[in-house]
């Protein structure tokens, strides 16, 4: 060690979030999962309009000739007449379309007797599914952070009530609570929506999922505050006369952000899976609205409706497209969460 080296100007210490970002970006799995989820986001929100503009029809238009005489949908990449009128012979059988009618490219066959472009519907469905996931996470964070802070910081009776309630609710399958609540709130809450951007039913499903999943972040926040509330920086704040709420707001909330980020990424994924489950049971978003859950329920059927699962009126693609979409987004979100955790807490492999 020589004097020259000591005299060299030292680099400014880098901010903690920059170090975290550096670790995150140098992790191949992290970048890959981020890219995959960005792709899913792009495909869901911009993909539908773009594909519609290219092929000239959207996911709401129905093409009677997209199904053959026995109502079986045509396969992928088929050309289908765009005419809306079906000509029947005197026995009621469907006649082939008139010669020279304009043709259009159907990326995937229509679903059952309705004849809509399934591929565009999967793209559109992503929008509703991701909205459900994101809104539900925001709602459960809104419930969990204040309650968790109160329970973890003040302890005592609030903490006892919150903890017992959490334990008790979590011992039972969440899906039962959700189904019970959805069934009896459907008539009042399901019509709420905002045009095509937030389809009707999405706010209801997001609200219910958000409320019933808020127990997980609640436990997380409470546990973290329990460990933090006796730390020295809290003591020093208290010594200069800060109130409890100010300590929570100024000193403790910033510490929760990494935890909430890691939880949020994985929670969006689990909430999307819950939406799928509700739709498959038949109590989620209206079945005419495309979400990945309702698209999947077309073939699996719901309790209200046997679906096409038993019959022949679907192709394997009707299962595969939504399944793939769900799988890609959920896997990428899970990996994103795992990578975030590794980047934030590299010492806890």
């Amino acid at each position, binding site marked *: 060690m020589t004097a020259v080296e000591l005299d060299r100007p030292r680099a400014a210490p880098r901010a903690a979030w920059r170090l975290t970002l550096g670790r995150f970006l140098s992790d191949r799995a992290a970048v890959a999962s981020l890219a995959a989820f960005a792709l899913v986001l792009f495909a869901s929100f911009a993909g539908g309009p773009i594909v519609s503009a290219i092929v000239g029809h959207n996911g709401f238009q129905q093409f009677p000739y997209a199904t053959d005489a026995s109502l079986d949908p045509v396969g992928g990449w088929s050309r289908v007449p765009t005419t809306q009128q079906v000509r029947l012979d005197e026995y009621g059988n469907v006649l082939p379309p008139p010669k020279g009618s304009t043709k259009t490219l159907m990326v995937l066959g229509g679903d059952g007797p309705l004849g809509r472009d399934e591929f565009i519907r999967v793209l559109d469905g992503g929008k509703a599914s991701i909205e459900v996931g994101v809104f539900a996470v925001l709602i459960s964070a809104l419930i969990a952070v204040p309650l968790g802070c109160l329970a973890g910081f003040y302890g005592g009776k609030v903490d006892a009530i919150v903890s017992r309630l959490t334990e008790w609710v979590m011992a*039972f*399958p*969440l899906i039962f609570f959700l189904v019970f609540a959805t069934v009896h709130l459907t008539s009042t809450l399901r019509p709420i929506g905002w045009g095509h951007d937030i389809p009707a039913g999405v706010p209801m499903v997001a609200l219910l999922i958000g409320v019933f999943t808020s127990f997980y972040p609640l436990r997380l926040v409470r546990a973290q505050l329990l460990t933090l509330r006796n730390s020295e920086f809290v003591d020093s704040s208290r010594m200069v006369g800060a109130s409890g709420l100010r300590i929570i707001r100024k000193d403790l909330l910033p510490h929760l952000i990494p935890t909430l980020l890691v939880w949020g990424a994985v929670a969006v994924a689990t909430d*999307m*899976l819950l939406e*799928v489950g509700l739709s498959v*049971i038949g109590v989620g978003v209206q079945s005419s609205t495309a979400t990945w859950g309702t698209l999947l329920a077309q073939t699996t059927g719901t*309790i209200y409706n046997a679906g096409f699962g038993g019959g022949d009126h679907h192709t394997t693609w009707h299962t595969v497209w939504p*399944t793939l979409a769900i799988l890609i987004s959920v896997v990428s979100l899970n990996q994103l969460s795992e990578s975030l955790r590794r980047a934030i807490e590299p010492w806890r492999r």
Partner: protein
Amino acid sequence: MKRIGFFLTRRIAGGVLTLVAVVTFTWLMYWSISPQPGRFVYPAGIKITNFQLADGAHRLGADRPKLTQYGDWWWHLLHGSFGQRWTGATLNDNVLTTAPVGPLLYPSVRETLSILLGGAILAVLISVPLGAIAGRRVGSLADRVISIGALVGVCTHPIVTGKLLTQWFGIDLGWLPIGGYCSFVKHPPPAGLPANFPTCGGPVDWATHLIMPWFTFAFLFLALYTRMIRASVAESIHEDYVRTARAKGARERRVMARHVLPNASLRVLTMVGMDIGTALGVAVFVEFAYGIPGLARLSIDAMTGDPLASATDLPMLLAVVTMITLIVVIGNLVVDTLYAVVDPRTGTADRPGRTKEIAAGVM
């Protein structure tokens, strides 16, 4: 011995308290939704007058004072009866006929328990070797393949697994029946049919009908358990006692089986206990995918009620809730007892950690 007796008594008392709480909560929830039990009596779908609603409720005994109904339900339960189902009530010549809950409930409990137990055994049997292989060399090719497989397993909805398995093994290959349930004991054909009428039953039929549900159920938990065993093995493989065992010339298999894997057994047991509730939620979808009218499916049906009536079948719901609570409580009791046996130090202590957060999406 005295301690274990005390522990068991406390646990059983806790279980009874849980049952009372859950049943009371169900009643409160039911009353809070302004129910219309009269819809079960009069044909659904058509417009139904207020008089008919009141009359239907009266015939079902749902217009009595709430406390009477509640007490009456417990009184009947103590006599071993869950009462009469509301769904399927028919009014003929001013006489109301209803079916008892039992004949629908008890077979469904058998079906759900068959799925749960078989699936849990399968999940543990497969995840232990996979977790051991992955955890022995963290970062190796086998570890990466297993870890990615586990990630995909966690992220796949059981309904999707069920759909794909049915498509491949049931329809395309035709190896297995695509759904339904066969009882473990072969019953003679129902009266009026010839004695050699082919009926479905017996251990072989039972198992072939349940193979796909077991795998569907196990796939999700397999992933969770493999991850956990991998972490446990990776932690303890570098411990001193493992090195000592190797130095003394123990074979690799013995090292794993006697010194490394027992560390994971406690955690597996903990997770099994914690996941009983989750498992019932997963069972909804497994039963749904294979058309098995099990307990979980029955509970959804009771909650949603008759689709046309959109009313909740309270006696059925209460019966199902009681059964689910009993399964959760007894399952936890068994796991706690095993826990006390496996690790005497923590016999009556609270158990650590749970995996429900991870599996929340499908439960």
